[in-house]
């Protein structure tokens, strides 16, 4: 059993890491999600729902952990600092595409819906099953998310052109 789990982890790690990155927006949070989900999955490796499709199970666990983690640690983000002005000497950051930045500002449930829909190519019904909600909720969350992204991506582009980026850690 341990050997099967090891084979699965090694085979699924690339895909899960990318999925975690897409889901959270940064590789560290993504790695944490992968770790939590794989550990919880490994502990119940023989159970039916896991044994049938472990990859789907781990992804579901990642999505749910992502949403619940956000609920736990940050309902809102308070700051007394103004957005930083980008230094001319600063290297080009990899994650500065306006849509990527806009995606990062979405509530995790909306972000999860968009990632599952447009990255994992899941149907709305499957997404609803993963998130434990109605298909209509998935549609509305996707619609709200996309609308917000359109708006914020446009704003970000303007800020970016002016040399000002949204608040980010160095």
């Amino acid at each position, binding site marked *: 059993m341990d050997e099967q789990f090891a084979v699965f982890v090694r085979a699924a790690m690339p895909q899960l890491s990318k999925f975690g990155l897409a889901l959270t927006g940064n590789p*560290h949070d993504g790695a944490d999600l992968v770790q939590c989900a794989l*550990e919880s999955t490994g502990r119940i490796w023989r159970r039916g729902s896991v044994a049938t499709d472990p990859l789907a199970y781990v992804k579901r666990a990642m999505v749910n952990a992502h949403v619940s983690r956000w609920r736990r640690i940050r309902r809102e983000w308070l700051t007394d600092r103004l957005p930083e002005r980008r230094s001319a000497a600063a290297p080009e950051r990899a994650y500065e595409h306006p849509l990527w930045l806009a995606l990062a500002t979405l509530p995790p449930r909306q972000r999860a819906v968009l990632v599952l829909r447009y990255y994992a190519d899941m149907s709305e019904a499957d997404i609803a099953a993963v998130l434990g909600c109605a298909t209509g909720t998935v549609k509305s969350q996707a619609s709200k998310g996309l609308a917000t992204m359109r708006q914020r991506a446009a704003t970000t582009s303007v800020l970016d052109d002016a040399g000002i980026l949204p608040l980010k850690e160095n």
Partner: protein
Amino acid sequence: MGVTEELREVLEARTRDHEPDWFLAESIIERVPRQRRRRRMAAGASGVLAALAAIGVLSLRPDRDSADLAGGPLNQSPGCAALEVRSLGAGFPDAAPTSFLVLLANTSSADTCELRGPLQLRLFAPDELDVDRLRNPRAEEPVDIRPGGVLAVFLEWDNWCGRPVSAARMRIGVPGGSDLETREFQPSPACRDVNFRSTLRVRDRDLTDDGATGSASPSATPTQAGQEDPVLPGGDAVTRLGTPIRKDGVGPQLVRLGPPPAGATHIGIEFSCLTAGSFEFADGSSMTCTADDVPVEGQPAALKHRLPLAPGQNSTTISTDGNARWRLLAAYARVEKTAWGVNERGETYGVANADGTPDLVAVVATDGNSGYAYAGSLEEASRPTSPAEAATWAPAPRAPVPVYESDGRTVVGEFTFGTR
């Protein structure tokens, strides 16, 4: 291009070249089966304890070792193991960064631990810290740690310009070994330049092969190897092997015991806290002492315990806060489970263990006589008769339960539930 098509492309582009964390994968593969085994063992042990608790009112015979909660060995991976992390604060005279000291031990008795890859270092907190992975070339230099040796690695976390961190931890992975996390609060280092990333790097390394770190001295009152207390049927027979060593320590330490003698299966310890603090042992068990728990000179040790001995292991660890003081008496031991006795009527007698409960369970009767009581009688007598009684655990007096010799016939005493 619509926003959905563009979003697809962005997601694909952003993740396309993302390399998986293979260290993390191997760490999970190593850790999860261990967690599973521990959960199983804990479940088994809790069953034993529940059985003991059910008849605890009877004052079981003093078989101290029968209820040990044995965890897995400290390091499933042979060789290199991350032993302990101590925070040093901003203590270096010429540097503002926050500093750490990581102790890496070779717990093998024969094999050299070869560090041939970078340590995996990562700072994290409830809000993710965006700190670079270790890139300092010094970490890439191979180093060999001889059996029993300890490598001290001094690390620095520098230039944090993000939000103040109130509870950062560091995760360390050792190539081919295990990983662990710090437990201590770390102040954030000063912000030097907002245009540069925060970094975590190796400042210095110090290899100790001479046993200076956490070395222990032979006990002042050496004890010859031999059988310990008499064992009841079904209990663990413990034979101490070699001379115990005594160690007075401060803070987390690796305690070396020398080469294990043939047949050793455990390390027996007698541990006393000398100051208040929390202390964790190699099998994950722990104890917390308040100032009132500190024994005065001459009092017996506060804790007697057995730690499973992994192949090649010749040391054990005490993990605690930096200033906590403690005393340890440790010796190798061979532990062998004994069989229950069987009387002429074919009934088993002895102490409850991982195999279950014998027909006749060893007890000390109300009048102080030692003997055996039928497990069924004990269970019946200890069962609450009403929800109120169960909730308050204040059983009303019951009919006396007879205590017999091991033959199950000769009465040697009795006791009464509810009059403990």
